């Protein structure tokens, strides 16, 4: 199965995922939703297997092939996380991000034109990035919930369920963030001989994770939850600087994460 047939697997997968993530909101259709989502993943996986067989080497070499794996892992791990935690929006989110990578691949298939430099050719590349993408989604959602809760508290309305949701989202997101970071360490060790070198992006990733640590530890204490919620909002701002802003900082010129 060559790359030309990708569209015949990609579009059905997206369709199945979209229908599944809509049906999940209807109580009577949960099972169908699960089946459809899994069918979408299977269709996509089938293409990867046939394509792998066709090119006769593992499809990890080009940017386009890397995106195949993002779509596959984000939807698969997203689905598993949804099954554990039952957050319905998670299916919509993974459908969205998974589809974005597919659509980029359909419109601009960098199957041979993007040459990965040797340092990027690593088996840690895909899990490292996938893990981060999933943690961002959890932190994004928890911050939205935190803002809602802050407004409710202003009107002196407590919401213990929302508190639990925020805590759980942060724990799950923190797990993905820490895993992504540790995989980054393993990769850096193999590529540059250092598992940690205080590269500007690493410094920012570190201070982001310590801010989430501060949130988690203040939540174990009986202190005003509003302080913790504000820490969470600051943490997301720091996360965004780490993700998007570091390249623009004068202190970060020469960072290995800026290409």
């Amino acid at each position: 199965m060559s790359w030309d047939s990708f569209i015949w697997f990609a579009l059905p997968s997206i369709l199945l995922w979209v229908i599944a993530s809509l049906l999940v909101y209807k109580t009577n259709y949960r099972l169908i939703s699960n089946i459809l989502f899994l069918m979408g993943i299977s269709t996509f996986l089938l293409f990867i297997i046939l394509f792998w067989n066709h090119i006769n080497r593992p499809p990890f070499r080009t940017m386009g092939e890397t995106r195949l794996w993002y779509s596959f892992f984000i939807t698969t791990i997203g689905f598993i996380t949804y099954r554990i935690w039952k957050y319905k929006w998670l299916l919509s989110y993974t459908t969205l991000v998974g589809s974005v990578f597919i659509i980029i691949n359909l419109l601009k298939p960098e199957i041979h034109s993007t040459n990965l430099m040797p340092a990027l050719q690593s088996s840690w590349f895909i899990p490292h990035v996938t893990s981060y993408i999933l943690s961002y989604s959890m932190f994004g959602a928890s911050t939205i919930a935190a803002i809602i809760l802050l407004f409710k508290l202003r009107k002196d309305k407590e919401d213990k369920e929302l508190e639990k949701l925020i805590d759980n989202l942060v724990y799950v997101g923190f797990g993905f963030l820490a895993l992504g970071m540790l995989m980054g360490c393993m990769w850096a060790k193999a590529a540059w001989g250092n598992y940690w070198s205080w590269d500007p992006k690493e410094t920012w990733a570190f201070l982001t994770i310590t801010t989430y640590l501060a949130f988690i530890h203040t939540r174990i204490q009986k202190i005003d939850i509003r302080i913790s919620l504000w820490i969470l909002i600051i943490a997301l701002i720091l996360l965004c600087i780490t993700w998007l802003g570091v390249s623009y900082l004068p202190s970060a010129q020469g960072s290995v994460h800026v290409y």
Partner: protein
Amino acid sequence: MHNKKRIWQIPWGYRESIAIVLGIVLVGFMLQATIGKFDFYLLSFPFNLYFGILSLAFIVLSVLLKRKAFFIWFTSLSFSVSLIGAITFLSIIMGLTKQVPIIDKANIFTLLGFNQMTSSWAFVLIYFLLLLSLGSTIAKRKPRLTKQYLVFILNHIGLWLILFFAGLGYSDLNRYIMYVEIGETQWRVYDKDSKVVELPIAIQLNSFTIEQYIPKLAVIDKKTGEVLPKDKPIYFQIDTNSKEEFTFNGYKIRLKNYIHNAVRSSDSSYKEVPMKASCPAALVEIRNNNKVKSHWISAGNKMQSPMFMDIDSNLALVMTPSEPKSFISNIEVYTQEGGYYKEENLRVNHPLKAGSWRIYQYGYDNNMGKMSSYSSFELVYDPWLNMVYVGIGLLALGSLLLIIFGKNYKK
């Protein structure tokens, strides 16, 4: 009657913790300004061992005296959060100031160690306090067979091992760059003062090969040499499996033949010769209003001159220089203790482990590219690395459990 607790009255909480942590950061800044940065070589073996034993003794003491007000505070959440806050604060400074190995112009920021944060006194003091507080907190907690304890212990011991061995092991870590000519054996390197050092490890380089990506085609302006169109240059990927044509200003450009390892065989033709001086070459055909012409083009290298194709009086078709896909050394390694290791495929991301040494493919002669007569390696000696890996493994397991369990609410 409600009595508001005054500061420094036990039990200590946030006010005391923040005051103490701030005080320590200030002491760090003062030390930095008066005696300069923290010298990590003070902690080289065996001093790091003594320091490690002292830290462990402190942790044992904290368990024995865990009911004393000081240790209750030292392992409290308020103190932990304050320390986390301090290390975050120092990291923000580090993230906003350019970190430099050598300070050339002194100002107030360099005086306080902002440009070399990780070896500044403030950072080092907070780091070791964190290590001690974390260790005492782990030791204090009673082991239980619960999910909560399992998640706690994996994450906290994992982190403690990483901080302990990465921090105390740092001064035992050595890294060198070694250059080895093909066919030769080398054990000498330059240290950071450009002095020759003989290492207890030798590398024999049997061969060195570079694999290159298939290059691209581009149209350039013959006068300026710029790739066109100026605002958005187009690069056309050569692909022998594809029938796709490259169209530019009405010219249709088609690939007729491609040789990855080509050597010029006459004024205007190439043939396949698998030797180091070879370079990619392509036979292309350009069609425009029934006019058809074919020509070989090549980006050339140090040994072969480039070949381009005139499209008209202003435009020419060229091939881009090849980018390296991978560079691979075939090496054998001998250590002074009689160890022998062999790796035929040493390349980036695939280092060789030789005892406490790890050998990384580092570089080659960029000017000569495929014809480089040497390969260079980075040698890293890190005797504590395995313990850091144990920490990383525990922390990874703990993170996985966080994803599965979330926050465990007591029912």
